[in-house]
């Protein structure tokens, strides 16, 4: 005999609400909490999407309803209530502050340390700005240069309107709607994101980041990025920002799809510094991201990431090496402090012949944080002469944090050559002593050693960001010297 419990009542009320259906005012700026088919339709309508896109979202929603949240990751957190989230809110155009003096001084101090220009600081903090002639003109110049080359770079909503044939052809090909719980959720409700197409044989003349940083401040909760590099093209794309983002959205479920056609190369760099919660582990962003790239013949995809923020990170940028001679790379630094938890790594799926992959992962844990590397290297039986090298190093600071490695290696081809190595260590007292002796204080010494530890990855970042990322590491580990 089952008793009628509170849970049942809650369940009933929930379904009842749906029974009557509810009216969604698509003119309003923010949708009511909760997720159902009407909401998905409303988001699609709001964005004036064509019918196929609406159907695509609905399909994803149907799959999502059947799925349960993954629990295998080595992270513990309170599960978000998916019915308590508003799935659409129009970007707020009203500035948060009228002048920079109102901005949290702590935030400004961080900006200062990162060496971000005053105008950018204002933009990032959400301060009302006069038209800054410089950046606008810069942006316009960029736009012109890109247009001349035939490069399409716009928000994905615009792309759905303007280049439906490209979006329709490629969206969901690398990360299908039913890929995983968060990817399905994202596919159903994604609000916006970026779209980038590099035509055949074109080498994108600039880091697409620069443009990005000036023009797109708010990124939204369910971001969708689609980058297509046509045959023989090259692009370097930078996502995120070193500046700390004080975002009130707790849950971030983004999807990034990269498609590198024959002979193309995509370099995708990420710096993630979402709000990690305070020192007691309260608050902070949950960052559940699905990133995957597909390489055709002779193509190359390189992921570089610096993860310092978020309370919980769940992220595995992957490469599907479908074409012969394709190359996948993954360079990562994940820093966790206080109560942060990161479960991050990569998947390298070798399908084509002579495919190569490199994985360099550096985990730094401090405070009471948990930092996990989880990776998969899979060599299919047809992938002759596949080559993989993986290295994951962990650095522990203090004995209240943890570093974990979960590498999965599956080889089905005899000509595969796979090497994996992992080490765990701490900063040597002799190293600190050496620095102290030469007049470098302990905090600086640790920064120095950490920088050395992560150099292999920092070197892969576009220059300007490498400098900021270095400082970011320093800031993230501030106060962790024990």
């Amino acid at each position: 005999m089952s008793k009628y419990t509170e849970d049942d009542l809650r369940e009933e009320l929930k379904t009842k609400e749906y029974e009557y259906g509810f009216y969604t005012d698509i003119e309003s700026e923010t949708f009511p909490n909760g997720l159902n088919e009407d909401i998905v339709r409303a988001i699609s309508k709001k964005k004036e999407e064509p019918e196929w896109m609406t159907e695509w979202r609905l399909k994803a929603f149907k799959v999502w309803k059947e799925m349960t949240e993954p629990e295998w990751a080595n992270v513990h957190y309170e599960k978000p209530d998916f019915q308590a989230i508003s799935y659409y809110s129009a970007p707020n155009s009203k500035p948060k502050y009228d002048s920079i003096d109102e901005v949290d001084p702590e935030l400004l101090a961080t900006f200062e340390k990162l060496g971000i220009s005053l105008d950018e600081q204002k933009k990032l903090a959400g301060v009302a700005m006069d038209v800054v002639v410089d950046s606008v003109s810069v942006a316009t110049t960029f736009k012109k240069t890109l247009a001349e080359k035939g490069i399409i770079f716009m928000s994905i909503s615009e792309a759905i309107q303007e280049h439906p044939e490209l979006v329709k052809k490629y969206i969901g090909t690398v990360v299908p709607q039913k890929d995983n719980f968060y990817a399905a959720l994202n596919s159903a409700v994604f609000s916006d994101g970026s779209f980038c197409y590099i035509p055949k044989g074109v080498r994108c003349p600039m880091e697409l980041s620069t443009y990005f940083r000036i023009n797109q401040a708010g990124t939204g909760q369910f971001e969708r990025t689609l980058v297509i590099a046509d045959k023989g093209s090259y692009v370097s794309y930078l996502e995120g920002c070193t500046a700390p983002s004080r975002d009130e959205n707790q849950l971030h479920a983004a999807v990034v799809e990269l498609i590198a056609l024959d002979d193309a190369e995509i370099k995708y760099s990420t710096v993630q510094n979402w709000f990690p919660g305070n020192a007691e582990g309260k608050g902070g962003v949950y960052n559940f991201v699905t990133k995957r790239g597909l390489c055709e013949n002779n193509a190359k995809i390189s992921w570089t990431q610096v993860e310092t923020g978020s309370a919980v990170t769940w992220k595995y940028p992957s490469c599907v090496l479908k074409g012969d001679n394709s190359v996948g790379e993954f360079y990562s630094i994940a820093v966790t402090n206080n109560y942060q938890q990161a479960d991050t790594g990569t998947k390298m799926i070798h399908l084509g012949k002579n495919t190569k992959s490199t994985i360099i992962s550096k985990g730094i844990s401090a405070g009471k944080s948990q930092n996990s590397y989880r990776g998969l290297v899979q060599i299919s039986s047809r992938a002759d002469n596949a080559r993989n090298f993986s290295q994951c190093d962990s650095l522990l600071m203090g004995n209240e944090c943890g570093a974990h490695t979960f590498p999965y290696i599956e080889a089905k081809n005899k000509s595969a050559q796979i090497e994996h190595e992992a080490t765990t260590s701490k900063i040597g007292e002799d190293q600190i002593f050496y620095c102290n002796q030469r007049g470098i204080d302990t905090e600086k010494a640790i920064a120095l050693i950490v920088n050395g530890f992560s150099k292999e990855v920092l070197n892969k970042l576009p220059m300007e960001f490498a400098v900021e990322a270095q400082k970011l590491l320093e800031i993230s580990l501030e106060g962790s010297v024990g």
Partner: protein
Amino acid sequence: MELKEKLVSSFMAFENMVDIDSPVHDIRTEAIKNFEIEGFPTKRQEAWKYTSLNSVLKHDYSVFPKHENALEYKDVKKYFIHEIDCYKIIFIDGKYSSHLSQTTHDGIDVCLMSAALSKPKYRLVIENYFNKIASKDGLSSLNTAFSAEGAYIHIPKNKLVEKPIQIIHFSTGNEAALMLQPRNLIVVDENSHVQIIERHQSLTDNPVLTNSVTEIFTNKRAIVDYYKIQNDKKSASLIDNTFVNQKQESLAKVHTFSFGGKLIRNNLNFYQNGERIDSTMKGITIIGNKQHVDHNTLVHHIEPNCESHQDYKGIFNDNATGVFNGKVIVEKEAQKTNAFQANNNILISDKASINTKPQLEIFADDVKCSHGCTIGQLDESAMFYLRSRGIPEKEARALLMFAFSNNVLDSVKIPAIKNRITKIIANKLGVSIGFDL
């Protein structure tokens, strides 16, 4: 009837055969309940992701053999390490064979689990050690529920056991399909030293499934050297659950040589409850056809200043599948831990596959932990070198494979075992070698 139901229902029949008033029986009843809940592991469980038991569970195993069977020594001599003098504990279809065995109570106890469970003089040891470290998963619980027979070895303080102890389980094939559940308990007290060799051998092609649990306790400064030789018939499968609980300054070494059998799963668990402990586990796996060998190791570093070494080599031919899942956990208190793990594999055929997952979970900062894992081929230039000196391809290949697995063989302390393993490997590779390794 499903094997699980069959086992659960035959527990009642089992109760008629054992003393149900002994405290051990409470443990058994508890365990069968646990098995009813847990059941057999499936691929959905993370630890069993790469190993499916479906193919071995489908047979209609008889749980209790009907007849007592006898074997003549001359027929089975080749399965013994007969070159050296040993204590022997021999079982035929799960029943003790006094004819083939050589046990002792002279200063040390090398005898039977059934005796230890029933006689009052062993009560204290059984109370203190029996089922104290075996895990509560489905398979171990199943074994605990049916635990009645196996090897019982107790070495008191300050004894150096001169002769190695051989434990061999024969299955005669008199049953169409047989399931065996041997339960071993090995307690080594302070400063003592013992060497043990374990082997499971089927004599016909009838399917056999062995689900064995071995609990090993090494007290202060004790040394245990354990060799598992797994070279069974293609119809026999083995699930080996070994749990080692170590006290301070003790040394436990387990070597696993897997060459035969249909499906082998080795669950090898080390718990370090003391300082300055050394745990070593090494293995060589050379398999072909459709064989499947899964090494699942765990080293739990609980206290400071301990070491662990893992070194597993695998060579996989034909449609064979290898799995290595090594887990090292270093607790917060276990500072100055030195944990090393290596897994090297060679794939010879395009249909062979290897899945490896060397895991580290580290909560202490002042530690040295590393793992390395490779999958590759024999070095072509080395092959060329050997062949240019007139060594035929097959022999050259075998030589390189010997070299590949040599550092595992190197740490084998009993020369007779080393010779035997060398011969088995040579046999496996189809060469005859005229040298000792």
